[in-house]
């Protein structure tokens, strides 16, 4: 396929056989100088006999926030987990199509999974710090990737905690068990872990659903801040959240990416009737 032009439809005739995907908005045309970080093409995924993703094609712009919305079970988390191959952990999964990160197909071969997951990190629905100290949580990634040690590591931990605005609060408590932190702090810590391994993409799977509204607001602020350094893809149940933080939004329904486009367009003038119904609360 044509990777360089940014126009993936230039010479991909097989897309023509798939009338259900609304191609004009999918993917959005990005302006000059804006780089596509992740591109999923004709992605199909089966759990056993059940097809959870149907011919999904989308592009994620570098250093932007892309939101995936849709009712539960629509495949948005599955799609997210395709982007760093976390679905590999599940038995009986079959995937067709391609996902390119920086132009390289991550499903092309067995590949270097640790390196992929280091580059494309993930934040989960329930904050999941390890049962280790705060320091060890942040240092975990750099240690397993042999990125730093000793004083260098101390610096990296500080830098990472600063990136998520935890350093000032926690700098005297680094040896405490991370399980003692509040939910919001735990979630920030999980993001700091990714900052420590210099992830380039952060996948967030409903990162705020365990948090109260105030903590949610603060995590959203953090996301806007992180956008300067990271490409963020967020799956959210909360449409307002998608509207508030994201630059692009994809609406999924029953395994299909129904519509994908600039968030303002999706929320103000959706092209697909189903998107409109969902946005306006007629179902979902």
């Amino acid at each position, binding site marked *: 396929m044509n990777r360089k032009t940014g126009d993936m439809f230039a010479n991909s005739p097989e897309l023509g056989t798939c009338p259900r995907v609304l191609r004009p908005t999918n993917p959005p045309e990005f302006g000059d100088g804006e780089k596509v970080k992740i591109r999923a093409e004709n992605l199909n995924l089966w759990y056993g006999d059940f097809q959870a993703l149907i011919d999904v094609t989308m592009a994620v712009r570098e250093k932007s926030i892309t939101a995936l919305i849709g009712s539960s079970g629509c495949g948005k988390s599955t799609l997210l987990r395709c982007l*760093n191959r*976390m679905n590999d*952990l599940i038995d009986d999964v079959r995937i067709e199509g391609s996902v390119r990160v920086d132009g390289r197909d991550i499903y092309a071969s067995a590949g270097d*999974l*640790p*390196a*992929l*997951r*280091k580059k494309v*990190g*993930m934040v*989960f629905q*329930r904050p*999941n*710090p*390890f*049962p*280790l100290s705060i320091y060890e949580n942040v240092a*975990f*990634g750099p*240690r*397993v*990737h042999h990125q730093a040690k000793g004083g260098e590591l101390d610096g990296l931990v500080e830098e990472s905690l600063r990136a998520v605005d935890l350093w000032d609060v926690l700098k005297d408590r680094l040896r405490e068990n991370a*399980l003692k932190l509040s939910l919001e702090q735990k979630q920030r810590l*999980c993001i700091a*872990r*990714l900052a420590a*391994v210099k992830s380039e993409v952060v996948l967030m799977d409903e990162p705020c659903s365990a948090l109260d509204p105030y903590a949610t607001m603060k995590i959203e602020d953090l996301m806007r801040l992180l956008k300067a350094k990271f490409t963020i893809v967020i799956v959210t149940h909360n449409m307002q959240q998608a509207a508030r933080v994201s630059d692009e939004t994809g609406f999924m329904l029953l395994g299909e990416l129904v519509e994908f486009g600039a968030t303002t367009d999706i929320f103000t003038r959706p092209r697909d009737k189903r998107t409109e119904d969902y946005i306006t609360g007629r179902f979902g």
Partner: protein
Amino acid sequence: MKRSLRRAKEFALERLLFLSGTASVVFVVLIFVFLLREGAAVFGHVSLGHFLGAKFWYPISSPAKLGILPLILGSLLVTAGALAIAVPLGIAAAFYIAEVAPKRLRTVLKSCVEILSAIPSVVLGFLGITLLVPFLKNFLGLPTGLTAFSGSLMLAFMAMPTIITISEDAINAVPREYKEGAVALGATHWQTLVRVVIHGAFPGIIAAAMLGIGRVIGETMAVMMVTGNAAVIPRTIFEPVRTLTATIAAEMGEAAQGTPHYHALFAVGIVLFLISFAINLTADLFLNRGKKR
């Protein structure tokens, strides 16, 4: 009339359940009181310090020499040897079964472990005498194959199922999120196990080791058959020893009731009881700590 009958029935049932529930407590107390009554009499003949610290156990010489230090050391040596073998192997096996083995192999392995725990100790002892003891004698060039090490090997077999089963439970109880978090950071399977899963499962693994010790230190039959039963202080693990349990089992039949020897054997029982109690208590503490987190 009818109502009072129903009430009486309910009362009787309640009492019955209460009795069943408290029976174990009553038995423990009764056993301990009995042990204490029979065993304490030995201290009319020897002091506590002498009993625990003296180096000679000649219960039928006159006057009887009742020092159980060789027996305690024998038990400790055999137990330590068994643990040195069973704990690393057992934990490694638990990790393999819980985290590495493919599904079908996992089921097979788990049933094998259960079968291993179902083998009667006397059968293991029998195998020990006929196979292990001559093998060790020839292989290591020892004057006799009946050594503390043989006992350790036998006991390691017996402790493994306990250690494997409880460690595996502890490993499985580690929340999936920890593993996912580690994998999502690019940790390999091995790194995830060593750096995250072990931390989560640690209290349970300690408890498993403690319960393994409990199983080992109270075991009698297999040890008695393969350790040679010489009540001397061993210098290496390749010498015959006699354990606390084997002493009771071997001598109880021939000790005349009411003699110092008879009471001394009960006192040995108290020592064993206290050791097992302490071990079980420690294991419980760790298990509970694991649950709280």
